[in-house]
């Protein structure tokens, strides 16, 4: 995985609890790591062996952007720094190179650009691949799961077949 730069966090206030091994930043919280930016009302940072390994962000909504090609928002976002994955829950939305994924839960791998979207309750999964993306080399590697028995729970527009592997591109 590509080495990432330092992680900068700014906020109005911070609270750190030794026993919990975590710190909570609250009020206009921003996290910047290279081109990746997260904006939230609150972020809880988890350390392991003094290393920052995980960020749990909540917001109305939490917003995330990375360069031109990726942006996302949801009520909650968990950024696993080591595994380099994002898990968005609560009105989750990801747009990657024009393709959009919505669902109750959307998982995104920063390395493979793979998207896993799943529905829950009445929130369905929605996948939109613009026409121009179907012909050019911006295919999508998406795994869509419907968590309940309703076969029509997955709605995709533009493309109806499974798409070939996406080319990895560095942010």
């Amino acid at each position, binding site marked *: 995985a590509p080495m990432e730069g*330092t*992680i900068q*966090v*700014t906020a109005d*206030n*911070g*609270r750190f609890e*030794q026993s919990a091994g975590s710190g909570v930043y609250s009020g206009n919280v921003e996290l910047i790591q290279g081109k990746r930016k997260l904006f939230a009302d609150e972020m809880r940072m988890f350390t392991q062996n003094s*290393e920052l*390994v995980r960020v749990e962000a909540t917001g109305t909504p939490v917003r995330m952007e990375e360069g031109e090609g990726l942006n996302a928002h949801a009520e909650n976002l968990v950024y696993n720094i080591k595994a380099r994955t994002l898990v968005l829950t609560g009105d989750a939305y990801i747009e990657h190179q024009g393709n959009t994924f919505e669902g109750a839960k959307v998982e995104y791998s920063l390395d493979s650009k793979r998207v896993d979207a799943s529905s829950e309750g009445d929130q369905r999964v929605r996948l939109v691949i613009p026409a121009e993306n179907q012909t050019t080399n911006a295919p999508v590697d998406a795994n869509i799961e419907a968590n309940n028995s309703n076969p029509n729970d997955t709605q995709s527009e533009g493309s109806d077949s499974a798409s070939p592997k996406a080319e990895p591109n560095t942010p």
Partner: protein
Amino acid sequence: MKRQGLLSATGILLLGLVMLMTLHEWDSALPGQDNAVAMAPAIIADQVSARAFSEKDGSLQYHLTADSLVQFDHNPLTKMQAPVLIMANDKGSWTITSEQGIVQEDGDLISFLGKVNVNNPIQKMTVNTEELHFNSDTNIATTPGDVEMRFDSGQTRAGALEADLNKGVLELKQGVKSEFEAPAS
């Protein structure tokens, strides 16, 4: 002539007596002397070392040293030069140093002023600020102004800090900026 002389002598004598009594009742402080009395040191000590032990198990709790210490009689204040306070803590001892120190409130409140450094080698944490107040009764330290903290995986700056050493909770206020090294993948 004599009587007038006598009167005048008696008059002067009486006047003098009244003056003396008035001056005596005036608490003997002449104008401008109040400040000198208040600032007059009661005790001056050099190369001071003081230890305080836990009532529970007798273990060393605080060890305070200072190059010099001045205690005032009319002013419940003790001033120190180059104080060093070592505080035992089950999560590693904290050492506070600064240019000056002031002890107030019967020893409960110690203020550290000028190039204040707080260090905990076990937790690999260092704090730098210009002013820090430590209440040994509540075991709470506060900094009213900018503070910078360095720890193993990064550093943090804030506008103010409050640390509860009993609970192990640190509150940072008035703007917080942290920088973490990215973990090795």
